[in-house]
């Protein structure tokens, strides 16, 4: 009887393909946890208030555990504590270390940014001007990635001169790339900080006939990004492993509920490192992705 099963919810911070991969992980975990009802929840808007509301409702509906990618972890602490007092709470994607969450499972955005920074240094041995593109420049993940990049390229001749935001509107994302090409003829490298930014960069450069002349560095594993990497037009992309978050996280929660707390380290932080995908390993990666999403 489905109603009697304990509910474990994975609450994400907004709809995107990225979470599809996590969902695949959750599904895999579901296969191994027949006594639980695992759900992946998308708030209808990427706003803290909406997400809080959703978690309140989940608690009201009797969820046994919640794993959340908090929209705004720094300031949601109090609310997270409230949830943690009523049910088992994990964080993922971006941590809230000061809260009473039991564990964090995810990557470190600063580290991911550093990886991207290294890619930039490698792609531009003689230095150059770079412009970044991102959905919400103020969001924590964007800030941390940018911080990581800046830290790595500090002191080199590579410069990140501007980061353009687009409110997650892809039309504007593409438009921003077009405008930057028009405004800055001497730009030598474009960085897509959100998953959909890199494909838009790739398309604009392709239409302008500038593939190969301007370097592209990306984040995440959009199919077009991977295609570009394979083709050599994109220097490389830094990916996270949301599949593992979903899979490991759910299993860990179930274990924890059943009383086995050994999987959670003392500081509660479980980092799943990111991966740098370039021409050398892109085929392997694409293969494993396909395998993951098939389930």
């Amino acid at each position, binding site marked *: 009887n489905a109603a009697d099963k304990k509910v474990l919810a994975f609450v994400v911070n907004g709809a995107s393909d990225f979470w599809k991969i996590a969902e695949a992980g959750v599904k895999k975990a579901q296969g191994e946890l027949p006594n639980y009802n695992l759900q992946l929840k998308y708030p209808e808007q990427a706003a803290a208030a909406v997400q*809080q509301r959703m978690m309140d409702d989940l608690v009201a509906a009797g969820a046994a555990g919640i794993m959340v990618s908090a929209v705004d972890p720094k300031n949601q602490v109090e609310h997270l504590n409230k949830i943690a007092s009523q049910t088992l709470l994990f964080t993922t994607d971006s941590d809230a270390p000061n809260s009473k969450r039991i564990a964090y499972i995810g990557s470190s955005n600063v580290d991911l940014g550093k990886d991207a920074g290294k890619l930039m240094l490698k792609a531009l041995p003689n230095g150059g001007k770079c412009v970044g593109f991102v959905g919400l420049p103020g969001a924590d993940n964007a800030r941390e990635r940018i911080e990581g990049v800046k830290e790595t390229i500090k002191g080199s001749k590579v410069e990140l001169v501007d980061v353009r935001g687009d409110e997650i509107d892809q039309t504007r994302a593409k438009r921003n790339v077009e405008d930057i090409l028009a405004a800055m003829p001497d730009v030598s490298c474009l960085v897509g900080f959100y998953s959909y930014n890199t494909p838009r960069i790739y398309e604009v450069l392709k239409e302008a006939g500038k593939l190969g002349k301007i370097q592209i560095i990306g984040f995440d594993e959009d199919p077009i990004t991977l295609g570009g990497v394979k083709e050599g037009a994109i220097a490389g992309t830094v990916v996270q492993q949301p599949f593992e978050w979903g899979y490991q996280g759910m299993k860990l929660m179930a274990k924890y509920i059943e009383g086995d707390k050994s999987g959670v380290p003392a500081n509660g932080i479980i980092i799943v490192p990111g991966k740098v995908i370039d021409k050398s390993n892109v085929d392997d990666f694409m293969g494993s992705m396909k395998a993951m999403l098939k389930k």
Partner: protein
Amino acid sequence: MNKKDLSLLVLILVVGAVVAFINPRFLYVGNLSNTLNQVGMFGIFSIAEAFVIIIGGIELSVGSVIALLGVLFIDLIVNHDVNWMVAFAAIIASGLVIGLVHGALVTRMHIQPFVVTLCGLLIYRGAARYYTEDATAGFGFGASFPTLEWLTAGRTNLLGFPVPHSLVALIVVAAIAWVLLHRSVFGRYLYAVGKNEEAARYSGIRSERVMVSAYVICGGLTAFAAILFAMYTRSISPAVHGSFYELYAIAAAVLGGCSLRGGEGSIVGVVLGTVLLQVLQNLVNLLGIPSSLNFAVMGAVILIGVLADQYLVQRRQRVSTAKGRTQASLAAAPLEG
């Protein structure tokens, strides 16, 4: 309570009963209290919107004002150590000023309210984002303003039910607004100006003043809501905080019987409209409907409700001597003699 409000209430009860039947947790004290907390916050700015809609205007900047004033409020008390009562007063005053500016642009410069407030929507949002450099404004961990928190986001136990203070605030605001709109001279003037500004002027009503007052009231109430939201989320990402809230507000007002042509609407209706919208939100989460369908469910229930209401109205009319055509012409154009 008029017929329109009544049928809205029936719709809410039906939806509530269905939800409670499928998932009895809907009726749990905690859940009801949470929902009512939301009703409190959303209701206040929906009433604000109703004032402007009644005079035949529209206010699209509600969401952006909530973001901008929320950011300012948090900044004042967290970063500038301003006493919260002073900050509270300053924010309400800013809301009133925003309303005054909108009203002046509409009445003095004769710019369409839609244009004025659309520009407001864009400008305030931009200002909020620029002010924080797109970063989130928040209380940070451990920051604590016990009195303020208790007043705005706290709950008081009443016969075992934790009554959210935002609901108390809504009840007070609604009661005052009700008296103002439905019993006072000023309310009469609001409706008169909304129905026929020219005729109102010929009756000695200073229609421009009345219109400006409506925008000012709207601004003030929105500022109040902004503080409640800021204290609820305790953090504001200026890029998204409160976005689309103007649509919520207008939807609640329209559901509650306001006509965008002005001159119509009741406070009870607006509050019920807010309740319906919030129950629908609650429903999606409680029934485990995929979140992607959240909006769709909301739209579908509203549409079905309005359609059912309209169907009943039309049937009643067909039964009585009046014919359907009359209704159509009433809705579309003023009666003629």
